[in-house]
């Protein structure tokens, strides 16, 4: 941008740009689980209804939210909870316990975590319980004490639900679903998982106590809606301090969404994956280039960002190593066998080739069968990109790989 244009764009000073970066980076990197929802109104209503019945009417329930990675499961749940908490009754009474399969890797740890989140560590003290069920029952009973005739509803949220399935005897799941079936305390168990076959992983006794209520999230928007999502994600909110700049920014976003190059970039990404995380990654890369001298995102920024994102990683590594796959008969440079072996070992270390079976002392090392973990197109692409590739290597590759 020329100096004159910078002056014209007015409020593009350091403070303003910093604010833009702050808002957008938080949106793309940190608050993705609380971002806007797109195209899942039906599932939203279903979940809202379910949770209302627990919190307001005291019904126990269980449900599984199933969707591939980045389809918005956590975001959906957080949105529903936010709306629910606008009701005073819910805000004051609802108890939340959030468990994650990555963190609570066995049932003992999970139980301690539940105790901690319910703030019942003092109440439990040093008590020793005979079984998991006893312990859990004690906790729920403890919640009931106090001046309430009915106890507060408890919401158990199990993230990475498919990891809990691998615990011994699925004790935690069994007990949680069990209490959600008995009418003692209003308890709802919500599991979030990316595995579509989650029901097959549940044991019979666990499965029978589960309500079989499943909410599927399937990224079912089409490309038109995808462009709209792009615009909404990139737009600055109305509360942005510098209004005139926000106006300019949003107009620019509108322009971008109509630009052919940008639409091509988005089309490519849309065909590769529909999930919004990849879109966020692309937008984050574009936003990171915004500076005082370059205050508005351009189509080329997005194009550059997409190139960065879609690079074939193995082709990068492979093209540096073409030389070492020469056979002795072809090479003009006479390398000793040990030197070639050293290079071959480096290939193994990079995991580009892998032995088919574990090497043992029975077989000689040089004669171990190997498997190449790349395909022909990757090798040919790498050779094209490789600077100063010797002609004989290229010819040899072309002749050997062409008939495959």
């Amino acid at each position, binding site marked *: 941008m020329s100096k004159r244009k910078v002056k014209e764009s007015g409020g593009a000073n*350091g403070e303003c*740009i*910093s604010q833009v*970066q*702050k808002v957008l*980076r*938080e949106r793309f*990197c*940190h608050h993705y*689980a609380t971002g806007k929802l797109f195209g899942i109104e039906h599932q939203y209503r279903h979940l809202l209804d379910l949770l209302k019945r627990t919190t307001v009417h005291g019904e126990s329930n269980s449900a599984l939210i199933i969707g*591939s*990675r980045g389809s918005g499961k956590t975001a959906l749940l957080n949105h529903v909870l936010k709306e629910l908490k606008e009701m005073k009754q819910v805000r004051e009474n609802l108890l939340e316990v959030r468990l*994650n*399969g*990555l*963190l*609570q*890797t066995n049932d003992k*740890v999970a139980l301690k*975590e539940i105790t901690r989140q319910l703030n019942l560590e003092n109440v439990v003290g040093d008590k020793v319980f005979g079984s998991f069920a006893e312990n859990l029952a004690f906790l729920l009973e403890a919640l009931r004490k106090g001046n309430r005739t009915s106890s507060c509803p408890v919401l158990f949220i199990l993230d990475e639900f*498919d*990891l809990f399935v691998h615990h011994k005897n699925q004790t935690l799941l069994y007990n949680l679903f069990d209490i959600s079936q008995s009418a003692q305390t209003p308890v709802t168990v919500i599991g979030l998982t*990316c*595995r579509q076959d989650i029901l097959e992983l549940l044991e019979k006794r666990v499965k029978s106590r589960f309500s079989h209520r499943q909410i599927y999230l399937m990224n079912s928007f089409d490309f038109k809606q995808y462009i709209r999502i792009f615009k909404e994600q990139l737009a600055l909110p109305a509360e942005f301090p510098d209004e005139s700049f926000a106006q300019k920014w949003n107009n620019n976003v509108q322009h971008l969404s109509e630009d052919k190059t940008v639409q091509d970039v988005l089309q490519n990404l849309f065909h590769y994956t529909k999930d919004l*995380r*990849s879109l966020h*990654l692309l937008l*984050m*890369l574009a936003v*990171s*280039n915004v*500076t*005082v001298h370059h205050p508005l995102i351009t189509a080329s920024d997005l194009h550059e960002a997409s190139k*960065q994102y879609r*690079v074939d*990683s*193995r082709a*990068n*590594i492979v093209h*540096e190593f073409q*030389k070492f796959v020469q056979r002795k008969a072809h090479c003009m*440079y006479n*390398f*000793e*066998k*040990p*030197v070639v072996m*050293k*290079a071959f070992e*480096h290939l193994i*270390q*990079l*995991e580009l080739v892998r032995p088919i079976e574990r090497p043992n*002392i*029975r*077989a*000689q*090392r*040089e004669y171990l069968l190997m498997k190449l973990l790349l395909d022909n197109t990757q090798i040919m692409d790498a050779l094209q990109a490789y*600077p100063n590739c010797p002609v004989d290597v290229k010819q040899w590759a072309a002749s050997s790989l062409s008939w495959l």
Partner: protein
Amino acid sequence: MPNLEHPAYPAATLLQLESLVPCRESQVSLLLSIFGERQHFSFPSIFIYGHTSSGKTYVMQTLLSTLQLPHVFVNCMECFTSRLLLEEILTQLQSCSPETEQTSQVPCDTFNDFVRLFKQAVATQELRDQTLYIVLDRAEQLREMEANILPAFLRLQELTDRNVTVVLLSEIVWELFRPNTGCFEPFTLYFPDYSIGHLQKILSQNHPPEYSADFYSAYINILLGVFYMVCRDLKELQHLAALNFSKYCEPVARGEANERDSRKLWKNIEPHLKKAMQTVYLREISSSQWEHLQHDDGEPGQLKGLSAHTHVELPYYSKFLLIAAYLASYNPVRTDKRFFLKIYWTENILFLLLAILYSIVDNRVAPTANIFSQITSLVTLQLLSTVGHNDQLDGPRYKCTVSLDFIRAVAR
């Protein structure tokens, strides 16, 4: 070459940074723009990959320490279990905040505890406003730990709800890391190899003060000419450059040539470098042995290498046994009968071994206990291995486990 420029950091610091990372300006520039200002959020996880000695570790360390960004640096090969790794991160975190005088060991068993302790540790004023970077070098080792460690690190920003970015450095590509059920995808960044021009520039920076920069550059040029075909690893080339420079300077030191006599210097150094390729490059001999050889300044003759065949001294009969075993193991059965006298032919491998042995040894050999004990010791040395069950009535079967080169060397 783009100059590094960023509104959040003073120009002087950036200039210093630029001088410390030659030939890596574009990667550093990208990282700077991704990191953004100190208090801004960045990608929850970044995966940097590239060949060995492509500068990943060096650039990250230099970038974070020059700009004084709060960071924790751990090598996953050193801290190879999850407990060691998590405890090391928590210990280093203590020294990130200036309030603690002494660092103490923080016991941490599980990732659940780690998240709790981590949130406590970053609650200090220093760390609350800035992005904390956790750099895990040799990240491929994470795959060998418990299955939850890698996915949990990728999501650490979400799990702890704090401003933290995890950076993974590795030689292996991301596709080989991804767990089966998927995970939070990091931002991947590739560090390409240094080109020959880059290597020339970086290696020439280390010139010793006694000689001129041009002289050293010419030396590096020759070195790269010989070694670039086989080796682009900066560390190895630096090692080779240091080892061989004194030999290169010899003609000048002895007064036979001056600094600009390139032909003479080339003729002196070229055979030396070729020899280096076969020995020091392959680490057949140690650097001190190599330097010794240069001082002795003669034809080295039989270099005592590290590789097996020049080192193993076997007793007389053991050598023949080994050769016989090799022939028995790898010669096709038809030729066996042809080459060796029919009298000694038998199906049992052990006796086949002895049969071949008898044919190749000149004098008469009796199947004494001595021979059998030598067979057992060859098995202990793992030069032979047993095949088949222990309770086979015909006697144990053996197989030779060494290569033809070894056999040739033994046969000399």
